[in-house]
């Protein structure tokens, strides 16, 4: 029992280090242009929130490594809490970029916002808009899962596939626009997104294979 407590602790520490500590470190070490406190704070919150999104892959059924240590119920509770938090942060994400404009000279913030979301020449903006919409769907369907009337298994696939699409598009968006990222942070995002996606894909392949095996029997 003590052993398991210790392992639990190590798990939480390593999760915190990987998805909170590391991005903070990379942000602190990165050669970012000097910006105001507010802008830096927004950048850091954005980085952490996105990092936590990537961490969600590891706080789910995909992560078999910890299933003997943690009660799955607790893992899912954490997954949900983080999920609603980051959806909240990223709901505001498009507006946060123009927020500092309210405190400084420059174009009208609303005009800037409209200009930004209508610049369709930009891949980054389009990816962002798609990712933002996907995220809203993911958040809302998670919130109202029970009212959707699909089976839990069906919902899991739905949630997994949408999340996979979201993470790929969102990571691409962050790397393409690169306001809050540099090469190391981009690499960190890509690696974590790839790992998480592979875990998810593996889960589906494995469970499908199991299903096939049972079917044969």
């Amino acid at each position, binding site marked *: 029992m003590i052993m398991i407590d210790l392992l639990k602790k190590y798990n939480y520490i390593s999760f915190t280090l990987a998805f909170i500590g590391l991005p903070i470190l990379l942000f602190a070490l990165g050669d970012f242009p000097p910006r105001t406190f507010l802008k830096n704070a927004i950048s850091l919150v954005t980085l952490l929130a996105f990092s936590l999104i990537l961490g969600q892959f590891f706080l789910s059924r995909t992560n078999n490594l910890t299933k003997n240590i943690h009660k799955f119920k607790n893992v899912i509770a954490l997954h949900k809490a983080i999920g609603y938090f980051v959806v909240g942060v990223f709901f505001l994400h498009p507006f946060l970029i123009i927020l500092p404009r309210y405190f*400084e*000279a*420059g*174009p*009208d913030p609303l*005009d800037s916002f409209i200009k930004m979301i209508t610049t369709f020449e930009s891949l980054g903006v389009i990816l962002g808009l798609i990712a933002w919409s996907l995220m809203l769907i993911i958040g809302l369907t998670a919130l109202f899962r029970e009212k959707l009337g699909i089976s839990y298994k069906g919902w899991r696939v739905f949630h997994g596939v949408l999340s996979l699409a979201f993470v790929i598009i969102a990571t691409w968006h962050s790397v393409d626009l690169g306001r809050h990222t540099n090469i190391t942070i981009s690499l960190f995002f890509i690696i974590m997104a790839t790992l998480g996606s592979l875990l998810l894909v593996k889960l589906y392949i494995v469970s499908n294979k199991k299903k096939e095996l049972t079917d044969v029997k």
Partner: protein
Amino acid sequence: MSNNDNKVSRREFLGFTGGILSFAAISALGKEAHFEQNILKVDTNKISSEELSVDVLVVGSGMAGLFAAIKAHDAGAKVMMVSKGRLGSSGQTPFAKGIFSYDAAKEKLSIDEFVATVSRSALGTNNEAYTRQLAEYSKARVEELRAWGFFDSPLYNAAFSKPMQEREIPLIERVMITNLLQAEDGSVAGAMGFSLDEEKVVTIRAKSVILCTGAGGFKPNGFPICDLTHDGSIMAYNIGAKITGKEWNDGHPGSATNAADTFGNWHGMFEEKPSTTTVQINHHLGVDLNYAAYASGNSIKMGPPQLMSETTVAGGPYTPEEFQGAGGPPQESEEGERKGPPKDAKRPPGMSASPVGGSSAGLAIHKSEGLTPINDRCESTIKGLYAAGDALGSHMSGGIYTQIGSSLAGSAVQGTIAAEEAAKYSKTRALPEISQEQIATIKAEILAPLKREAGYSPRWITQTLQGIVIPNFVLYIKKERMLQAALAYVDELQESHIPYIKASDMHELRLAHETINMVISAQMKLRASLMRKESRCSHFRLDYPELDNKNWQAWINIYKDKSGAMAFEKQPFGTWAKA
């Protein structure tokens, strides 16, 4: 790269024999190679041509250009605006934050008294007709600007776009006009230039042209005029117009550290919303700071000069007694064009924070240099050609900056008057015919720098020119020997280097034409300064430090004589030039 690597101290400078040798030393500052092959980045055979036509063509998109376009449209003319930059975001307009509004109901001074006081401060150098217009019409223009939202944002593009879009006035941005077209009778017939974004030469036939091209300088460091190179004056001069006011000097100070940091030098003022100013007549020299630097710099160790208030310097430019105390580095107040750092500004440690004179080298006082007007209606000596704002040598406040915020207001007022005249004139004219031959000749002239296989880069010529004319002992603290020496160098650039100026793309083509204009402007400034053997307002001759009211109650006009040489004439104060 440290700025110090590139400065040459005056002591070092004068250490050379004569001063002639040192010009060469400064010229060598430029890191651009001198004569070298032109590696083209555009296909010169694929440069297209576009032809447009309009009643009134407005060149320039600052405050004067805005009013010129709007008011000519409202007077019933078909208008088009063409600009090297962007509406409300190029030239000096974006950086001017104070606009004078004379409210007869509130001001203690009557308009007559206002004009008289300005004339006393300007020592007669102002043209009273234009001084009066400023007071008469400024309030009406300010109210129009207010309705367009001008006072709601520190950035002017949106407010300027509103009346333009409401009237659907065509606006061509990022096209540099280099040449004016002339009809057979000598009247203006349009303009030609090239696009920065497309490989294209643009010809615009017009019944009338209003130049709102602003003033210019030698792309000085620390003042936001590196896109202003007297384009309007030079293209008008080239077709025979008279140019005035070249001997005056703007003396805005800059910072000793990061001298080229325009934004920093203005201490956040660019981020402020504009506001109005009331009557406040000064004698803002600026050039007195240059004198203090010059006079004390020789006797103390090298380095940026002290503030004038810290060092008492004898002699120097004359400020009329009535205006003493208001001169020198002006107080902050609600001034639109703050000429010194505010007292509460965060200064870097050490004396390096001292303001140093002459960050606006090559620029004259607002509205004092440009096309010579032949009447109070902004008409130039060329038929059909009008100018407004800093492109017009209206001498609205003379050879000295007298009324805070008058620059923006004057541009708005003059833009309106020029527009009304140009619209009226264009109704009497048919669209001028221009031969394809003339167009082809000018097109070849415009594109010549691109077609050279080898030559001097515009940057190298510009940097060489800067080394010759920017140091404060040339055009700020003037004396015969130095003016002659500098002129010899500038003439050399004109004769032996400009004919070989090259450009590898459309951006460099712009630099090339700007450089050509700056070199001609430098010749004008040096020659006019040599001619005016007295000191008055912002023109200070160390060898003629006194006012000479007997000989110099006059402006200097510059024009091309029949042989194509630069010619000069005096025009007595209070008279109009002849067309």
